[in-house]
């Protein structure tokens, strides 16, 4: 690799020639502030917070986009740099809703951190505020453009997802970020993946909060509140309490949920094992009976909405399985309620998810059980929301003992379920079970390395089981899904049997409901790998690592569902999908009447 010598604040250092000044400075241990910069996503030099002085240069340079050159001398702390940065910050703040105490990002805001670092005590440019709107119509995402600093990180993140539902609109002081016509996210073809929320450095985009509803349910003596928690949450919740990225906090997480006062605590991993039984059976049936192939997984509600909006011709390829937490909710309201003798109407199911799209999923008409008159799931909280509840309850998270989920009825889970939270995990879990069924034996080889990892956004493998060959593909991020589905449409892809698609890159561990990590930290770490590691760690230590070995799942079939894909299983655990229109003319009419 070509190297060049540069001097940064008097420190001489040799760095790769492709580095920017920002990256070179980081290698030299010099921290240059950033705001619009987001590694690999938004590198546009727009906000001017990272300005530095290059000796011999006429004007200041944006460190995040200026490449290093041989012999370059950079000064990051001259009076000129410092004054310019301060003025830039003050100007950004002059058009920012500085309601920091009541902001969801209070204490976790990159703009707030910069203001604090630079000792901003007054804003000398008090002027007009650009027009703003507050949009909390969707069940997943709230957009408060009075907080928006037009850095473009969300626009870039949405584009990276291959969706671009957010764009810069208008010009100059009128510039805003939003969908076309600045309509509500609820009317736009948004999949609610929440990657815009993860990218936002301030409080302009955040989840629709449901914690008050959950508090009320917990405090209501008539409600039997059952909580379930997705695998990916344990891989990131610790970050909200200052623990290093990648720390697995399964035990403390269950202990915290118990102390919050939930009546019953379960792991969505049970639902994941159940999903494998249903989805694996569906796959084998489709292969045997010449059903629609490739079959595509349906665990990721962001991906489901993506298919409904953008690839409706693939809706018959989707597995009809509900996602694991919806399955588990349906089982809690039926099997669990029956066994415990509780009226399903008195049960309130809370799902703790790494995902913002799950909030809208739980609200879908299809997720309402008409015979019982209840929803499968009553509230979905993100990892961030549950961390705030834990803090509010005064729980000293880091000193909690390790506990587990409640063990009766649906408490057990296997290693196969835990890895659902990482890209390739659902595929690997399915293969572990499908291979045993097709091979008619308990196969010892259970780790399918080919479908793991984030090096490639599309992974493929051919698995030989006896005389059967199963060709599979795994795509993470909707942009990757787009590529894969386009290749299938035009016939350039091989004939797959089974495809796993997760809406977010890296899978659920990097879902839109996970903790936001600041852009500077993200320069040094790949969150997708670090968080996934925590899940693979848990898989290895589980006594059972194949979904069909889950004793509680077996019992559920014996005592209630009869067998996978039975009539009863279909009624409770399967669903259907609908084509959704992109920007129908009606979105403008609904906008006019508001």
């Amino acid at each position, binding site marked *: 690799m070509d190297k060049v010598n540069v001097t940064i604040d008097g420190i001489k250092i040799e760095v790769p020639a492709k580095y920017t000044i920002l990256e070179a400075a980081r290698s030299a241990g010099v921290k240059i502030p950033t705001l619009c910069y987001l590694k690999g996503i938004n590198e546009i030099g727009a906000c001017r917070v990272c300005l530095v002085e290059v000796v011999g240069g006429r004007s200041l340079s944006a460190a995040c986009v200026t490449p290093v050159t041989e012999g370059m001398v950079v000064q990051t702390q001259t009076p000129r740099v410092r004054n310019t940065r301060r003025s830039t910050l003050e100007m950004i703040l002059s058009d920012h809703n500085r309601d920091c105490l009541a902001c969801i990002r209070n204490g976790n805001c990159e703009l707030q951190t910069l203001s604090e670092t630079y000792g901003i005590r007054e804003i000398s440019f008090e002027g007009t505020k650009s027009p703003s709107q507050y949009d909390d119509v969707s069940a997943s995402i709230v957009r408060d453009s009075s907080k928006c600093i037009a850095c473009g990180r969300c626009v870039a993140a949405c584009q990276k997802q291959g969706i671009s539902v957010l764009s810069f609109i208008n010009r100059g002081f009128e510039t805003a970020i939003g969908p076309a016509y600045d309509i509500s996210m609820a009317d736009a073809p948004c999949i609610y993946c929440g990657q815009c929320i993860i990218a936002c450095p301030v409080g302009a985009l955040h989840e629709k909060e449901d914690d008050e509803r959950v508090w009320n349910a917990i405090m209501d003596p008539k409600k039997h509140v059952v909580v379930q928690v997705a695998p990916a949450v344990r891989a990131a919740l610790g970050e909200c309490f200052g623990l290093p990225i990648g720390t697995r906090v399964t035990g403390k997480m269950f202990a915290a949920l118990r102390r919050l006062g939930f009546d019953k605590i379960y792991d969505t991993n049970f639902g994941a094992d159940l999903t494998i039984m249903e989805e694996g059976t569906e796959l084998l049936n489709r292969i045997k009976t010449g059903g629609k192939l490739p079959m595509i997984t349906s665990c990721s509600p962001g991906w489901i909405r993506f298919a409904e909006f953008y690839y409706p011709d693939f809706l018959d390829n989707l597995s009809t399985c509900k996602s694991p937490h919806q399955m588990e909710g349906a089982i809690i309201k039926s099997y669990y309620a029956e066994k415990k003798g509780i009226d399903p109407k008195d049960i309130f199911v809370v799902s703790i998810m790494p995902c913002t799209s799950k909030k809208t999923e739980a609200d879908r008409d299809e997720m309402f059980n008409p015979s019982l008159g209840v929803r499968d799931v009553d509230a979905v909280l993100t990892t961030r929301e549950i961390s705030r509840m834990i803090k509010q309850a005064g729980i000293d998270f880091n000193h909690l003992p390790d506990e587990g989920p409640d063990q009766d009825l649906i408490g057990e889970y296997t290693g196969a379920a835990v890895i659902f939270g990482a890209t390739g995990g659902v595929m690997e879990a399915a293969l572990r079970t499908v291979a045993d069924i097709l091979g008619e034996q308990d196969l010892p080889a259970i780790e399918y390395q080919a479908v793991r990892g984030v090096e490639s956004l599309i992974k493929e493998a051919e698995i030989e089981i006896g005389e059967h060959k199963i060709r599979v593909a795994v795509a993470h991020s909707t942009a990757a899904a787009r590529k894969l589905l386009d290749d299938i449409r035009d016939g350039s892809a091989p004939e797959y049997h089974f495809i796993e698609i997760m809406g977010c890159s890296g899978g659920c561990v990097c879902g839109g409901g996970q903790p936001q990590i600041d852009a500077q930290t993200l320069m040094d770490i790949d969150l997708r790998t670090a968080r996934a590691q925590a899940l693979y760690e848990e898989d290895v230590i589980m006594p059972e690592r194949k979904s069909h070995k889950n004793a509680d799942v077996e019992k559920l079939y014996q005592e209630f569902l009869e067998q996978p894909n039975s009539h009863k299983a279909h009624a409770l655990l399967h669903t259907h999908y609908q084509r959704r229109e*992109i920007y129908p003319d009606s979105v403008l009419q609904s906008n006019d009447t508001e």
Partner: protein
Amino acid sequence: MATTTRLTHDEKINKLNKVIDKYRGQGRKVLMQLLQEAQAVYGYLPLEVQRMVADALDLSVAEVYGVITFYSFFSLNPKGDNQISVCMGTACYVKGAQAVLDKVISELGIQVGECTQDGRFSIHACRCVGACGLAPVMMINENVYGRLTPDQIPEILAKYKEA
């Protein structure tokens, strides 16, 4: 004085489809050209046209809308048979262009960028038409009106209303 013959919606869509087919599949780099030609054919760029353009170039509607709203040349609303451009350039502005514009707005009952119900007039605010010596200046179609005062506006508009 209306110069264009009115095409039916279907005729316009047919012409638009021919323009769009020329650029289909070529992506972001031809967006500006396509929008320019689409506006020439269709008159303006409503949501229906944006959807067609986005679809042809594999872009999102929001991206197309973003470009349209960035450039003042592009219009989301229909333009009138008579297009009124009030110059808001520096010279005209200091000579009272705002009062002229306000009078046009109140006379026609529409805002800048909008078109009257009957399709006869639309108002645009433009930057310098190069006739600063005549400031403040307003153009209606190709005709220039200079050294304007607000009280002249009704009389000027009346000529176009009658035509």
